């Protein structure tokens, strides 16, 4: 109970909760009338978007002490993997959507 009071009394936490709730509704709203032909490219696009987790890896790498080898390596790997998600994700999505060129 005290834990909940601690969490909800901080404005920053409450604001983030607003963002979460609204984002859920936006996410659902945005997907509602998707034709089946777009299911896979949309999934691929969403996949690329959650590559935003790379920002966390940049932050982590950005404050890693250069003498802590384990953290440096793990952080480096995290950046590589995050970039793979972002770049690979957007390129794959674009390839899938090549088939949607308008004729004429």
């Amino acid at each position: 109970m005290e834990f909940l009071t601690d969490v909800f009394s901080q404005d920053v936490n409450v604001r983030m909760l607003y963002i979460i709730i609204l984002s859920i509704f936006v996410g659902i709203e945005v997907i509602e009338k998707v034709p089946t032909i777009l299911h896979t490219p949309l999934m691929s696009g969403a996949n690329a978007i959650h590559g935003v987790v790379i920002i966390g890896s940049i932050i982590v790498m950005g404050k890693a002490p250069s003498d802590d080898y384990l953290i440096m390596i793990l952080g480096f790997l995290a950046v590589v993997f995050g970039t793979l998600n972002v770049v690979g994700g957007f390129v794959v999505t674009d390839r899938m959507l090549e088939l949607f060129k308008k004729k004429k």
Partner: protein
Amino acid sequence: MSTSAILNICYLIGSLGFIIGLKMLSKPETARKGNWVAAVGMAIAIFGTIFLYIDPETGEKITNLTWIFGGMLIGTILGTMSAKKVQMTAMPQMVSIFNGMGGICAGLIGIIEFRHLIHLNETPGGTLMTGHALIILLGLIIGTVSFAGSVVAFLKLNGNLNDYSFKGQTFFNLFFLVAVFGVALFMMNGDVANAHMMMYVLFAMACVYGISFVMPIGGADMPVVISLLNSFTGVAAAFGGFLYNNGVMLTGGILVGAAGTLLTVLMCKAMNRSLMNVIIGSFGGGNAASAAIVGENGGVIKEISAGDVGINMSYAQKVIIVPGYGLAVAQAQHICHELEKQLTEKGVDVKYAIHPVAGRMPGHMNVLLAEADVSYDKLLEMDAANDEFATTDVVLILGANDVVNPAAKNNPASPIYGMPILEVEKAKTVIVNKRSMNKGYAGIENELFFGSKTRMLFGDAKKMLQELVNEVKSN
């Protein structure tokens, strides 16, 4: 303007890019641009972070820039090369493996941050029973589960792994999941000195759970699983956003988490199965359908909406229409011609496949279509049509039944066995328009309707064709 103000603007632009991009991705006309809108938003958020981010604990900007740029360069080269070189048929596994990359990125962030938290709390009076620790651990667990599951999904789609399940695996999975959270709680509550080792145990357990979750699910259901894992990684990214009080990570993560979940549900509906059935049902062996329309051999029909058909046809290269008695009954030959004209205007190659006994008399269809001013060089006789189906994207069957029933070729016991038919199964997609599942002239069930490439468009031919014309016009 202060750097933090510019950075906040960058994050706002990034979030907007995600929302607008995702919306654009849900419509065929704007999908390709939507992908780029999201990508640009992402780039702005990333580079804004690199150059403008200030750590709240130390007040310092991002260091180790060579490592960061080096990592991004490697990721970009590997990512672009693999995404471009891979065959189109391998696209689903590429989505899966890139999803896994995002997952393990979140997992590693969790490990690093938790290690940092342990160091801060190794002094007497330090505790790990905080909201902060919980957020880090949840991101770690969810990201790692998604990573392990995505790797398994990739290997399955690639053909390297078969389905594997053991008795009671559903219960094992449930139990193990509870155990994972139990260990996390235990770790937070216990001795800070042990937390280090336990963190790696937790990581390993999350991997095991991810593997066990995806292992038993059949290869054909993988796209649904990948969509689900996609939303998991989104949630993991959101936890990262919660951790760093980072608006763009939070927005992007939750958007994908929510949108990905809904997309998973939609994909299940399109397969006419429930999500529970996909995750657990594979043990039973068969595909239990939630709808009532099950064929005599236990097959399941899949329905489609006029909107989907309209889009399919608008973007097809070649469409063949198979008219039948139903078209005549509905007197829909004129609106059919209208659809043909609309599609031809869009650059689609449209022809008609006329079976010799389509309708109730020979030549019935020819007369019907001639009355609607359909040009007779668009009419293909059966043999000519059968040569073309293999290169056809969409076959639209309008009220024809027995003339497209594969039993005539496959089933010696069938009353229509031996009759030559239109081999529509060779095409990429088959759309069947009928008023109901009622049997045709020969009074038998048509196994074509239960085929994997077949989708049923129920409704009166005239009404459905009008809807299709409207859809094609608006595309």
